[in-house]
């Protein structure tokens, strides 16, 4: 944490854009400080800063192993954390404080992480191990809250609400005590921040910054108890909730930002208390405080386009900031095309990976297939890495649960080769489906275990506050407080599996160049036997997923249909709990690959699986985005969760207005064809190579790693290689 008080000349004029330039430079300094700190590596930018060197948080254990669990453990530790939290005041910033470390990380750092040992899931571990399942047991956050609840009540109003429902729900004291302590903790941090601002005012000499500090102080004194009354107060309130929720368990879900803040903006403009530039400055500072996932545009529950002048202003503010943001523009065929065009222009101009784009048609129609009405489906907004959530209404474990479908494939292949029966791709697929079913069912049972036990491990004390139900019922979101339980199960490795099936079909069955035995011998020898490299090249040069209308694409569709059916079938396991399939690896491509030996797509032992729903690099000689996009559109499971398209585009593609129009047309086409989410990196190969050689020289280079954006210099060499390989091959 660096001192930022009284660092600028006393007579320096500070128009808003100049303030943002200074804040951007300071962010680069903060990013450099974070490089090398393990907890900040390989994740979102988050907006956090490093704590003071002498700052240590000592947890209060409530278990004999030294860790803490449940309502009591988490609320007491959170209150202590908030009460002791360092205060960071930057007079150039519109808002007070930054977050620094989260309790989930601190438990790991203190060697007291992991699931509550009193709640054993040993019975699930053999299947987890056999199929390489990322089970989600003990995972936290990863669903969205409804900020409107907090903005309407303020922290004081939330306390009143807790007291009211505590009286109405006897027998839930543990829940209410924990929630009340949680809110009081946040209020303690705000009080400390007010003291910090007062101290800053004693030192700061620049009159413009003194004025800003005075306004900041007034705003925060009010927000200890009161509900926000202006755009500035609303943004600061969101900052407080975001920072506290990050400190609690790294929750990063945002909201429909334009519609959430529009009433404040319009009211302030109408009464003359706000200028356009001030509004941009506040929004830019909000985005700087923490790049939570926010959606812009889309359809209202009634089906009207929600793009407003304020949506444009948010894009302009992000452009002023010119830094890492996680803004998603929701695309639908009736949308304001000028807004889409403006979004694409900023994407290419700033090359920071924002905005990304989500497709209303496939997302809404898909969610409706799970039995929900259109009005509800339209409210399921993009507030996570690759995921959507109904604000404050559903519990999801989005992006926390993965099946390793390539591992399932290898288990099936080993079984076929060890048996005396027929050897064919059809029999192999039957075995694959048998093991996939077992894997999916085991995964669903892991989720049910989580739902039954997580509250005794780690309740959702922050997100409960802005959800519909927990406070009213006295139940945690994971434990019956939510209105809906739509549990995410993402498949991974679809391209690796499809390529493997296609290679076997083409080389062994169609061309008869190889025998099953020769192929398997090479696989078991990791292609290091005599002639193994030739066989590996032959397999990897086979028809590929993403190639366009070939056998590998057909395998991809077949695999996705099969996986989707299996996941949907799990809805019968427990009434009230639905399971939604998707295809997404997150950045687990490396870890998931490390669990799988060589495969017939020419992949060697433990190499990464493919990324999300994307093909492996080199899928097609011309690298045609349309061919790749077409297959990703066709393998969408189609129930409201995503299988994103991840693109690396050269900056020259949209060098003029015609180029921008073509990219807009591409975006509209893929969403018409059924795409759900589109992430784009605008980056040239030379820059990424230079940054890979010396990351410290590029502290402001932002890349979209998967669904999230990160500073390139904060990635570990392994993750940098992943991004570099993808970009080089795409170019």
């Amino acid at each position, binding site marked *: 944490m660096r001192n930022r008080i009284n660092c600028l000349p006393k007579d320096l004029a500070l128009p808003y854009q100049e303030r943002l330039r200074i804040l951007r430079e300071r962010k680069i300094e903060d990013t450099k400080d974070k490089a090398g700190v393990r907890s900040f590596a390989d994740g979102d930018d988050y907006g956090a800063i490093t704590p003071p060197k002498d700052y240590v948080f000592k947890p209060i254990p409530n278990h004999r192993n030294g860790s803490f669990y449940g309502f009591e453990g988490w609320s007491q530790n959170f209150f202590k954390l908030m009460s002791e939290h360092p205060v960071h005041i930057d007079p150039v910033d519109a808002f007070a404080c930054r977050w620094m470390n989260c309790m989930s990380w601190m438990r790991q750092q203190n060697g007291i992480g992991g699931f509550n040992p009193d709640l054993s899931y040993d019975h699930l571990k053999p299947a987890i191990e056999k199929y390489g399942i990322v089970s989600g047991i003990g995972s936290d956050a990863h669903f969205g809250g409804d900020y409107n609840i907090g903005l309407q009540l303020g922290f004081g109003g939330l306390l009143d609400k807790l007291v009211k429902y505590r009286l109405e729900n006897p027998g839930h004291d543990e829940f209410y005590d924990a929630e009340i302590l949680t809110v009081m903790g946040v209020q303690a941090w705000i009080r400390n921040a007010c003291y910090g601002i007062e101290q800053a005012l004693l030192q700061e000499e620049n009159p413009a910054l003194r004025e800003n500090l005075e306004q900041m102080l007034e705003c925060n004194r009010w927000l200890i108890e009161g509900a926000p009354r202006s755009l500035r107060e609303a943004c600061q309130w969101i900052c407080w909730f975001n920072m506290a929720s990050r400190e609690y368990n790294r929750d990063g879900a945002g909201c429909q930002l334009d519609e959430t803040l529009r009433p404040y903006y319009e009211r302030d403009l109408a009464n003359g208390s706000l200028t356009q530039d001030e509004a941009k400055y506040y929004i830019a500072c909000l985005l700087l405080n923490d790049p939570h996932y926010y959606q812009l545009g889309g359809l209202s529950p009634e089906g009207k386009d929600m793009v407003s002048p304020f949506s444009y202003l948010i894009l302009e503010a992000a452009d002023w900031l010119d830094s890492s943001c996680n803004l998603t523009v929701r695309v639908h065929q009736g949308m304001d095309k000028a807004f889409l065009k403006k979004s694409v222009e900023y994407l290419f101009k700033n090359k920071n990976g924002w905005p990304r784009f989500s497709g209303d048609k496939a997302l809404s129609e898909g969610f409706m297939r799970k039995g929900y009405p259109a009005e509800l489906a339209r409210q399921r907004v993009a507030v996570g890495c690759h995921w959507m959530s109904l604000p404050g209404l559903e519990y999801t474990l989005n992006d926390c649960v993965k099946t390793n479908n390539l591992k399932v494939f290898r288990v099936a292949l080993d079984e076929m080769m060890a048996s005396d029966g027929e050897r064919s791709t059809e029999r192999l697929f039957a075995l694959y489906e048998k093991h996939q079913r077992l894997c999916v069912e085991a995964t669903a049972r892991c989720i049910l275990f989580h739902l039954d036990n997580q509250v005794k491990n780690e309740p959702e004390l922050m997100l409960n506050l802005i959800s519909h139900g927990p406070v009213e019922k006295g139940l945690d979101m994971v434990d019956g407080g939510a209105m809906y339980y739509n549990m995410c199960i993402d498949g991974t490795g679809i391209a690796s599996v499809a390529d493997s099936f296609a290679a076997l079909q083409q080389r062994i069955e169609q061309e008869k160049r190889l025998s099953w035995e020769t192929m398997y011998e090479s696989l078991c020898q990791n292609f290091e036997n005599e002639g193994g490299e030739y066989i590996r*090249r032959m397999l990897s040069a086979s028809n590929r997923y993403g190639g*366009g209308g070939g056998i590998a694409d057909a395998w991809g569709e077949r695999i996705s249909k099969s996986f989707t059916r299996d996941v949907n079938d799990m809805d019968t396991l427990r009434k009230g709990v639905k399971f939604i399939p998707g295809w997404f690896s997150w950045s687990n491509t490396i870890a998931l690959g490390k669990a799988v030996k060589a495969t017939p797509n020419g992949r060697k032992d433990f190499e990464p699986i493919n990324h999300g729903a994307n093909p492996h690099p080199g899928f097609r000689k011309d690298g045609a985005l*349309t061919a790749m996009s077409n297959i990703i559109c066709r393998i969408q499971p189609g129930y409201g969760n995503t299988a994103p398209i991840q693109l690396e585009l050269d900056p020259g593609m949209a060098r003029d207005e015609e180029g921008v129009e*073509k990219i807009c*047309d591409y975006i509209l086409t893929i969403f018409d064809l059924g795409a759900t989410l589109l992430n784009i990196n605008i980056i040239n190969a030379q820059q990424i190579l230079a940054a890979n050689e010396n990351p410290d020289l590029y502290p402001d280079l932002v890349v979209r790693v998967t669904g999230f954006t990160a500073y390139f210099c904060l990635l570990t060499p392994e993750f940098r290689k992943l991004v570099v390989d993808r970009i080089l091959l795409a170019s």
Partner: protein
Amino acid sequence: MGILTNIQRFSLNDGPGIRSTVFFKGCNLRCRWCHNPETLSARPQLLRYGQKCIGCGACVTACPTGSRSLSPEGLRYEEKTCTACGACADVCFSGALELCGREYSVDEVLGEVLQDKPYYEHSGGGVTLSGGEVLMQPAFACQLLRALKERGVSTAIETNFSFPFEEVIGPLLPWTDLWMVDIKLFDAQAHKRWTGGDNACILENLRRLAALGKPVIVRTPVIPGVNDAEAEIVPIAAFLKEIGSLQYYELLNFNPLGASKYDSLEMNNDFRDARPLPKERIEALADAARALGLQVKVG
């Protein structure tokens, strides 16, 4: 059947909207800067990328004419006896051998390019025939264009236009929505010297096309030391003033990306060390053309 070298989808630089570009093999001109040298010969050719060879020897076994052999120095290749049948490339999985050019049926091309029809429809794009020189295979081009039009796909041709209008160009007119024609040099002698062909019929064909009201884009590849001066560009622009159906004039900066293809064909490359013009320079040339009242783009 037609002989093609490649079908490139998601092409953004070969006409309006999102397009697929079908590359024909064979060209009647010999532009010395050509960045697609593999499309010059009308016959299939073997491209060789020695650095990718893993020395497996599969090509030696596969070759029916003995053109490939193993020696103590490594793999050897006899171009004189090679028939470019592709048997060696068929077993080369390292990418060291690649057969450039093969026969395609109309249905085969349609099977590929129609996969992107939704993108054409959203963007006002379509399919562009390019090369090589499309008009070297007029019958196949005509069948393909007609098949595309019958399926509601917009069509375009990139051509050097140095062919008889009545016999070659005329039959394609009903099936071609947009013509993209190169004028590489205006001076007849210079044109002959650098491309091996006469430009008189190109200019006359353009006049006839304009008289029919057919939309046309004229393009000039700007080559360092050949036509990168106002004295070369302005006369072309002046000529284009009389082409009433001209949509715009486009200057294409020199493309150096053909160097590795020359190496793989062991062909002499006169422009190995040439580089694209600086942005300011090509913009100055465009401004000179704009001064005559033309709409000019820089590609």
